[in-house]
């Protein structure tokens, strides 16, 4: 009796320990990602008043968009900063120029394109700083003995800018509106999100109808014999196949045989469909099985045909479960990287995809790409993108739970 | 699942049914002794015996109430069906008949005291002896048939009742002759008449008991049927 009780107690303690361990891992993971990634949502800018010299730029108030784009805004900026800090020699000049992002000139271009009336005036801009400046301000400033990429003179300039209130951080909208870029301060996840959305759309549109139809057929109509048994076993096995295999399959079949263009959401969606189908079929069948046989009997007893029973009674009751399974399958697909690597979605794509046949990348692949980049600022962005991805997953899973709660009726 | 049809799934139910039957048999034994003693008292003029019969009448009444209560309990608790239902109903009816027999026996004993050992005790002495012996046999025969589910034995009791009825009729004629001969003895003769009448009633009740045996075994209700009808029923 005493021994049994102590054994029970011991077991409870073991259980508690494993739960705590799991929680700890989660906390460490989230802590790490958040501490690294939150910085990605802010960006260092240099606030300065630039005179948009009409003569230097060769523009007037009636210049066309193309003329504005061709104008030398970069030179204007370089001159502006050269006059501001008076660098000594070519080396310092180069160092100065490297502190401003290549995107800064584009900021000016866009502003002028939007309002050509600005030409000839002095306008205050929040110019994007280079990622090294960004990293120095966020992490290295005031830290003793740190190995920073900034030279002494650069640090001196920055300190003086800070004193003048020129060097500040603001919310990083570019992160959400830009596509990928070689320059970390300009790189964003817009392209990846759109790609993800399009890919999942393709996946959903294909896998939900196919999965539900397959589940209904297997559960309600298929004769119970050897062949259906083999099909069932294979579907279950399919769910356990390593996902990269699906990538290979996609590469071999969709791209090589059917000639679907590579690295598009279409082919990505096709491959992910293969991956999510087993999940949807299995959860769909479970949902159908959970419909009480008494409901079926009642409908049969009233003289409903098989198809009527399935579509009037079984399907409406099973749908919440099926939807939940689908959303969970989609969430899985959302986080999938490996198969997409095989079909070329790892390509560096700057443009935001417009439709399912445009080359694009997806969030997890974007994360993978960035995590491989040497720049420090990309590490930050990697974590930032992970936060966004996790956010999507949480939203989807919550949606699944809520959907089930709302649609599920007691019978 | 076991194919033992003699045993209920509920052992308590078995025990309950067994109990009412045994109690009924016990009551039957008592009543049988009451009748025998009453007859003996009248024939031998033993007033002490007659007193005892009257005294024990109370016991019989109490037994009737007790057994009837047990029957009600079984009906309420077990909702018996088929043979069990018939058993309970039969016991309930038999118990009532036994109680009536008890009443009649005490009536006989009462009149035995009235008659006392007066000169006319000899009147119809033989008929009383004979009928008395017959009805005692009938009671024990009916009860035996009940325990053994013996339809033939029950029919035999019905046949005996017929003989007792004939005996009663002839004793009645004898009494009437006697009263016509000697009107002074009418009072005494009426006492004797009551006694004979009581014994004849005891026979009828014994017959009722044996009819319940047929109900118990065959499920057919043969009350108020003629002997030939009963024999007919008993056959198939």
């Amino acid at each position, binding site marked *: 009796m005493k021994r049994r009780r102590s054994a029970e107690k011991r077991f409870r303690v073991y259980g508690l320990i494993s739960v705590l361990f799991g929680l700890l891992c989660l906390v460490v993971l989230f802590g790490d990602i958040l501490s690294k990634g939150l910085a990605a949502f802010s960006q260092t800018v240099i606030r300065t008043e630039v005179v948009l010299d009409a003569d230097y730029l060769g523009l007037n108030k009636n210049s066309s968009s193309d003329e504005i784009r061709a104008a030398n805004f970069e030179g204007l900026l370089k001159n502006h900063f050269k006059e501001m800090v008076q660098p000594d020699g070519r080396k310092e000049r180069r160092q100065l120029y490297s502190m401003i992002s290549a995107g800064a000139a584009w900021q000016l271009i866009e502003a002028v394109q939007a309002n050509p009336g600005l030409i000839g005036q002095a306008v205050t801009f929040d110019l994007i700083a280079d990622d090294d400046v960004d990293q120095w301000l966020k992490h290295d400033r005031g830290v003793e003995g740190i190995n920073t990429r900034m030279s002494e003179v650069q640090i001196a300039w920055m300190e003086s800018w800070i004193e003048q209130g020129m060097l500040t951080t603001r919310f990083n909208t570019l992160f959400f509106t830009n596509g990928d870029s070689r320059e970390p301060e300009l790189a964003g996840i817009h392209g990846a999100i759109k790609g993800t959305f399009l890919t999942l759309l393709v996946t959903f549109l294909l896998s939900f109808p196919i999965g539900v139809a397959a589940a209904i057929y297997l559960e309600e109509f298929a*004769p*119970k014999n050897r062949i259906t048994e083999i099909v069932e076993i294979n579907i279950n096995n399919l769910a356990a196949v390593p996902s990269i295999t699906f990538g290979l399959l996609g590469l071999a079949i969709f791209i090589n045989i059917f000639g679907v263009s590579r690295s598009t959401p279409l082919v990505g969606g096709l491959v992910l469909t293969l991956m999510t189908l087993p999940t949807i079929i299995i959860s769909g069948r479970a949902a159908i099985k959970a419909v*009480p046989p*008494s*409901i*079926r*009997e*009642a*409908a*049969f*007893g*009233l*003289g*409903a*045909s098989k198809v*009527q029973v399935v579509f*009037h*009674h079984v399907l409406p*009751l099973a749908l919440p479960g099926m939807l939940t399974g689908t959303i969970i399958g989609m969430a899985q697909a959302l986080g999938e990287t490996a198969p997409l690597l095989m079909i070329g979605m790892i390509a560096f794509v700057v443009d935001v995809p417009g439709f399912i046949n445009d080359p694009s990348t997806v969030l997890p692949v974007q994360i993978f790409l960035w995590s491989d980049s040497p720049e420090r600022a990309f590490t930050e962005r990697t974590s930032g993108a992970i936060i966004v991805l996790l956010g999507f997953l949480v939203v989807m899973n919550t949606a699944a739970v809520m959907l089930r709660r709302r649609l599920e*009726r*007691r*019978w | *699942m*076991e*194919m*033992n*049809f*003699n*045993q*209920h*799934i*509920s052992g308590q*139910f078995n025990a309950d049914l067994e109990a009412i039957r045994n109690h009924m048999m016990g009551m039957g034994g008592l009543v049988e002794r009451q009748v025998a003693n009453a007859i003996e008292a009248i024939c031998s003029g033993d007033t002490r015996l007659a007193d005892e019969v009257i005294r024990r009448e109370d016991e019989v009444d109490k037994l009737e109430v007790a057994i009837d209560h047990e029957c009600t309990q079984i009906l309420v608790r*077990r*909702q*018996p*069906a*088929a*043979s*069990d*239902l*018939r058993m309970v109903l039969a016991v309930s009816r038999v118990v009532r008949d036994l109680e009536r027999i008890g009443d009649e026996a005490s009536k006989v004993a009462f009149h035995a005291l009235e008659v006392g050992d007066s000169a006319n005790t000899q009147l119809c002495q033989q008929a009383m002896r004979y009928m008395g012996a017959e009805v005692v046999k009938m009671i024990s025969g009916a009860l035996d048939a009940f325990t053994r589910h013996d339809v033939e034995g029950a029919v035999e009791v019905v046949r005996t009742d017929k003989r007792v009825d004939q005996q009663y009729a002839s004793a009645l004629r004898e009494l009437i002759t006697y009263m016509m001969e000697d009107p002074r003895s009418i009072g005494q003769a009426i006492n004797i008449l009551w006694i004979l009448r009581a014994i004849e009633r005891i026979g009828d009740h014994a017959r009722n008991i044996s009819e319940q045996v047929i109900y118990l075994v*065959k*499920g*057919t209700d043969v009350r108020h049927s003629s002997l030939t009808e009963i024999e007919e029923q008993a056959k198939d």
Partner: protein
Amino acid sequence: MSIIENHTTCGSPLVESPKLTARNVGVFYGEKQAIFDVSLDIGSNEVIALIGPSGCGKSTFLRCLNRMNDTIDICSVTGKIELDNEDIYDPKVDVVPLRARVGMVFQKPNPFPKSIYDNIAYGPRIHGLAHSRVDLDEIVEKSLQRAGLWNEVKDRLHAPGTGLSGGQQQRLCIARTIAVDPEVILMDEPCSALDPIATAKIEELIDELRENYTIAIVTHSMQQAARVSQRTAYFHMGQLIEVNPTDQVFTTPEHSLTEAYITGRFG
């Protein structure tokens, strides 16, 4: 315990003017035979109770009567079952109208997870019995009235049927069955999930329904069989042992197996 060789049903399995007739019916689940050579008539406007120990085949037999066993792949039926002299297992017969003519009420109240109105209207809809909304309303009201539920639910016809109490749900199921205007109603232990008061209401209802319908009821409660039925059929190990008027079965059953069952000597 094994089946009895060469058993012929005791009592009176056949009647003068039968509604449903079963002749030499056998039912097989794959290799296993569940019903052996059952011949039984069900008369018009009578309530027949099918009783017997668990697994004796009474439910299986009941389900043969409107071909509910069709939904089980491995189940096959031999012999002949006729409804108004028409073989219901004829390959030409469509089960859909058959099941409308021979309705079924199940053990567990199983209303659809829809409104009370839709529960009743479902049958008429799929059989095309109502030509207009007004027709349908009328059918729903009439069915609920016949099932004695109208007064309890008339103010909440669009509330979910599953929100009713167990007894009300079962009466809803009966109303749903009545709505397609059947001739025969099969009931498979309709009260086994209900409390005594709800049971009494259903029994009362069965008694009223007898005027218009022929009813076969499977029950585990012998008291219930005694209360509601005119004839009682006793099944044992897939055989029909005895069929007799109910009062006879419960006082003087013919067959010793019937006797043993109803007196509780095995079960």
